[in-house]
């Protein structure tokens, strides 16, 4: 099936930032400029993550979403600090198409159902931050990888989908910012228990990593940050090489 290439932009105080292992943030630039560039370069979707939403108690990206929607005509997923059905409504109203929820869903899983019933499952992305605890298990974290939850990632993914999540955004805390490849076992563990699309985030350094996580992880898309923001590769290059590697992607 088709693989989607999704630039992931983590935002703090209106800046595009990048961190390693979700610590040590570095300001990269104006997210609007980057989003437009990625759109022009063939991004299949755009993912915005409000990296400090937990500090403010809410998502603060509304203006950014609206500005982006002015000239970026691909779907936008927005995550970070979304705590209620009303928060979802505001973010969708600003121009987003899908919302990602992590912390608030772990605290109150029924929120997933409420959002899915109100706005549709396809809009309700369950965002999971996973840290490896053994060779075959992972624990879910919240608050940008700072708080442990004691929840098993694979079980939580299943529960989330049963409650109505239409897609999963799966971030590997271990691989994030390393450019050493995805945690393929993590991805495979989740894709083998849910039938909704799963987007893998964390660790992409080469196109070979992409080929592996699609073939063995059965992922439906990848969220790419470091590789793009630091201009190591362009979306065009990634797409061309992935197509040559035998993957199915949108042809532009």
């Amino acid at each position, binding site marked *: *099936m*088709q693989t*989607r290439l999704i630039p992931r932009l983590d935002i703090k105080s209106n800046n595009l930032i990048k961190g390693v292992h979700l610590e040590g943030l570095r300001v990269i630039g104006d997210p609007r400029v980057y989003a437009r560039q990625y*759109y022009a370069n063939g991004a*299949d979707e755009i993912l915005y993550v409000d990296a400090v939403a937990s500090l403010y108690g809410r998502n603060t990206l509304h203006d950014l979403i*609206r500005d982006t*929607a*002015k000239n970026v*005509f*691909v*779907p936008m997923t927005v995550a970070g600090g979304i705590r209620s059905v009303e928060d979802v*409504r505001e973010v*969708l*109203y*600003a*121009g*987003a*198409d*899908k919302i990602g929820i992590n912390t608030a869903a772990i605290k109150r899983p029924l929120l997933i159902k409420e959002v899915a*019933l*109100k*706005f*549709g*499952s*396809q*809009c309700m992305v369950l965002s999971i931050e996973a840290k490896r605890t053994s060779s075959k298990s992972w624990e879910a974290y919240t608050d940008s990888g700072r708080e442990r939850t004691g929840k098993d990632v694979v079980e939580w993914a299943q529960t989330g989908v049963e409650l109505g999540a*239409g*897609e999963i955004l799966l971030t590997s805390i271990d691989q994030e910012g390393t450019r050493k490849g995805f945690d393929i076992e993590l991805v495979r563990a989740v894709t083998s228990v849910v*039938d*909704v*699309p799963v987007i893998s985030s964390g660790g992409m350094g080469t196109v070979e990593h992409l080929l592996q996580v699609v073939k063995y992880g059965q992922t*439906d*898309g990848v969220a790419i940050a470091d590789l793009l923001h630091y201009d190591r590769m362009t979306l065009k290059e990634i797409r061309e090489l992935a197509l040559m590697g035998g993957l199915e992607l*949108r*042809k532009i």
Partner: protein
Amino acid sequence: MSRSVSIIDYGSNNLYSISHALEVNGANVKFARTPEEIRQADRLVIPGVGAFPEGKQNLVDNGMFDELLAYAEKERPLLGICLGMQLLATRSFEFGNTTGLNLIPGQVEIIPDKAVDGARLKRPHIGWAKIYLIQNTSCGSTIFTGVPIGSEFYMIHSFHVVPENKIHLLAVAKYGGHNLTAAIQSGYVMGCQFHPEKSGECGIQVLNQFLNL
């Protein structure tokens, strides 16, 4: 021919993107929030994301359901997008059995969860899909006129419209070897399952075509 278009506002979320995508085509965009505003529209878009029963209920609660039927009788252009397209059908089986506008006879059914070769298909179907036009000479100009062959559009759905009469099937997308309905048309009533406002440049072109009809 004016390029004025009204977008139905019935509580269905992101109106900003579709209104903006129409504006970049030089359209004069209005929002239709009352039956009167529907009556006065030159051209109408029914957007929509979410579940069919809720969408239909919102149309009814806003007094728009019957007004849309009256509008369609006047043979002015009407484009349903995503859930908006599904609402054009006779009935939907999402969360039960709910009747729709019945402007294009057909049923809204769940998409397959297995490819023709038996492999698992993820659901919802999320991603870009190439659109295949069904040869349909009765349609004349369509929203795809002038759009390059092989163009891909963004789809995100678990249900699709199966028209009763194949002559209303305008385009399909392939998923696991199955044909999923991507667009339908009956006279001036049209629907697209994909999101033209989220399908990059070719999506903008489709909307431009709609404004030309």
